C-alpha cells in the first residue's frame, strides 16, 4: 500500500512535530520516539488505504491533556492503534496517546516491550495518574476484554463501564473525551468465543474468528465534546454518586455509535467499487 504524496508530506510534518514535542520526554516504561516512528510508518498505509479511516469531531480537541474514553471493538485492539494514529496524524498539534493495555499483554515477550516503547502501557491507576500529571493524554477502554471480545450477535452493544477511569479523571481533574469507533467489529465479522479453553491457556479471552486477517472494513472515529469532571466530587465518592457521571460518558458514546451506524459506509464498497468501475468501463 503506497501513500499519496500529500500523505507522505503530512507524515514527515507529523514526525517533525512529534520530535519537537517529545524531545525532553522520558517515561518509566521506555517510551521511544524512533519506535513510534517505525510503528506509524507501518500503520499509516493501513490507516489511510486499508481501513480508510474518517475522523469526525476534530474541532473538539485542543492541544491539552485529556482522558480519551472509547468503546472497544474488533477482537484485537486495532481500534486502539487507529485512534492513536488519528491523534498523531490528523491534528495540527499531534500527540502520542498512551493506551492502557491489559495485564496479560503488558507481560508478553516482545509485545509488552514494543507496546511500552510506543506509549501503550499497563492499565494501572498509578500509571494513569503519573501520565496525566505529566500532561500526557491517555486512552482507556473501560469495557476491557468484555468489549473487544463480543460474539457477532452482540456487536456494537456497549458494555457497562466500571467507574475506575472516572475516579482517576476526577483525581487528576482532566476532561474526558468520549470516542465512538464504528467499523472495527466488521474486521472479524464472524466470531465464536471459547472462554473455557482461553481460561485453561491463561488467556483473558479466546475469540475464534472466521478470518485470520482483519477485513478492510471502513472505520469511522467520532470524537465527542470533552466532558469536564466536577471539581466538588471526591474521587473516593460512593459508587451511587459517581455512576450518573459514568452513565453520561456511556450515553455520549452510545449516541455517536448510533449516529455512526446510520451514516457508515457500505462494508464491502471497497471491493464493490472497483468491480463497478470495471463494469462501467466495459
Amino acid at each position, binding site marked *: 500500500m503506497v501513500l499519496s504524496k500529500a500523505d507522505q508530506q503530512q507524515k514527515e510534518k507529523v514526525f517533525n512535530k512529534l520530535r519537537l514535542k517529545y524531545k525532553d520526554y522520558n517515561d518509566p*516504561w521506555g517510551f521511544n520516539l524512533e519506535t513510534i516512528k517505525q510503528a506509524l510508518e507501518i500503520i499509516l498505509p493501513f490507516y489511510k488505504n486499508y481501513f480508510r479511516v474518517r475522523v469526525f469531531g476534530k474541532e473538539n480537541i485542543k492541544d491539552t491533556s485529556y482522558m480519551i474514553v472509547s468503546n472497544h471493538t474488533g477482537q484485537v485492539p486495532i481500534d486502539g492503534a487507529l485512534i492513536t494514529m488519528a491523534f498523531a496524524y490528523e491534528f495540527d498539534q499531534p500527540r502520542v496517546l498512551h493506551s492502557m493495555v491489559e495485564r496479560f499483554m*503488558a*507481560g508478553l*515477550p*516482545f509485545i509488552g516491550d514494543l507496546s511500552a*516503547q510506543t506509549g501503550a502501557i499497563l492499565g494501572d491507576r498509578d*500509571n494513569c495518574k503519573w501520565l496525566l500529571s505529566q500532561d500526557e493524554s491517555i486512552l482507556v477502554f473501560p469495557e476491557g476484554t468484555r468489549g473487544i471480545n463480543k460474539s457477532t450477535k452482540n456487536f456494537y452493544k456497549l458494555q457497562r463501564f466500571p467507574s475506575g477511569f472516572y475516579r482517576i479523571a476526577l483525581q487528576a481533574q482532566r476532561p474526558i473525551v468520549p470516542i465512538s469507533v464504528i467499523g472495527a467489529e466488521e474486521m472479524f465479522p464472524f466470531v465464536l468465543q471459547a472462554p473455557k479453553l482461553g481460561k485453561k491457556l491463561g488467556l483473558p479471552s479466546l475469540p475464534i474468528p472466521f478470518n485470520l486477517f482483519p477485513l478492510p472494513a471502513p472505520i469511522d472515529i467520532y470524537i465527542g465534546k470533552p466532558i469536564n469532571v466536577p471539581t466538588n466530587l471526591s474521587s473516593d465518592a460512593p459508587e451511587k454518586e459517581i455512576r450518573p457521571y459514568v452513565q453520561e460518558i456511556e450515553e455520549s458514546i452510545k449516541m455517536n455509535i448510533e449516529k455512526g451506524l446510520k451514516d457508515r459506509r457500505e462494508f464491502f464498497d471497497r471491493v464493490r467499487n472497483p468491480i463497478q468501475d470495471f463494469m462501467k468501463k466495459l
Partner: protein
Amino acid sequence: MEEEVKKVLIIGIRGALAQILSRLILENHPTWEILGLDARSVSNIPKQKGLIVKKIRYSRGSFENIFRDHSFDYVYHLARVSHSTNNHSDFTQRLELNVMGTNRILDLSLRFNVKKIIILSTFHVYGALSDNSIFLKEDAPLRASLKFPELRDVVEMDQICSTWIWKYQSKIDSVLLRPCNIVGTEIANSMSQYLKSHLSLKPIDYNPIFQFIHEFDMANVLYRSINDLPTGIYNVATDEFITLRKALKIVGGNGIPFPISLASVMNNFLNLTHLGIAPYLVEYLKYSCLIDNSSLKKHLGDDIFRFKMDESLKLIS
C-alpha cells in the same frame, strides 16, 4: 570542644559498601570507634585508624559476647547473605543467617541499649512482576517470593525488620533501607557483575526500566541515616531511570543477545550463574520494579546524590 566518642558496629564489613561507609564515618568523626565484623576473611580489609575488624562466626553466642563487651551507639546490619545462587544448601544457610541472624541482631540491639540500628534490605523484596505499578512506595506489598520462592529469606528478613522497628519504636530508633541497584567500582553485587560481563545474557524480548545508585551515594545515605532519618522504612533511589538496553550500552557490556523468556524456562534445569546471570535476576530482566524515593527526599533533601546515573554507569564500564 572535642566530639563525644561514639561506638559503631558494622556487621558485614567485608562488603565494599561497609568499607566505604566506615571511611565516611571516620572522615567525618575521627574520634569515633568502629568495630567491623564479618564471617568471611577480613585480612584484606585496608587498615584505618578507628576501625577494628574481626572475623566471627555468625552465631548467637558470638554476637552476644560482642554486644556484652562493647556499648554500641549505632549498629549497621549490612550482612544480608546474597541470593545470587539457587543451590539448596546455600538457601538453607541463607534462611538461617538472613532470617534468624537478623532476629538475633535486632534482639541484642534492643537488650544492650543501642541508640539506633540501620538495616540494609533491597528493592528486590517488591518483586519484578508484569503488573507492578510505577514507583512503588514503601507500603507496597512485598511480592518477590511469589515468582521466585528462593527470595523468601530476603522478604522474610525485611518483614521481620518492618514489624520489629514499629513494635520497639519507643525503645530504639531503627531505619530499614531498600535501595535500588547499587553500582560502583568497588561493589561486586550481581547487577554490577551482570552489567560488566561479556558473557551474560542480554534480553531481546524485554527491556525493563532500572534505577541505579552509585555505591558512594548509597554509603552516604547509610551514614546520614544516623542523624537525619527518623525511625522508618525508606526506598533509596535517585530520580533517574533508564532502560536496561541503554544501561548496557553505557556500560559497554557485550553480552549474548538471548530471549530471556526462554532463560526463565531454562532456569529450571540449568544453573544460569555460569552464564553471568543470577537466577533470581531473570525476572528483574523481564519486568520493571521501580521505587519511589519521596520519603527519603523528605528527610535528606533533593540534592542528596552526588553521581548522575549515567556517570555511575560509565564509572563501572
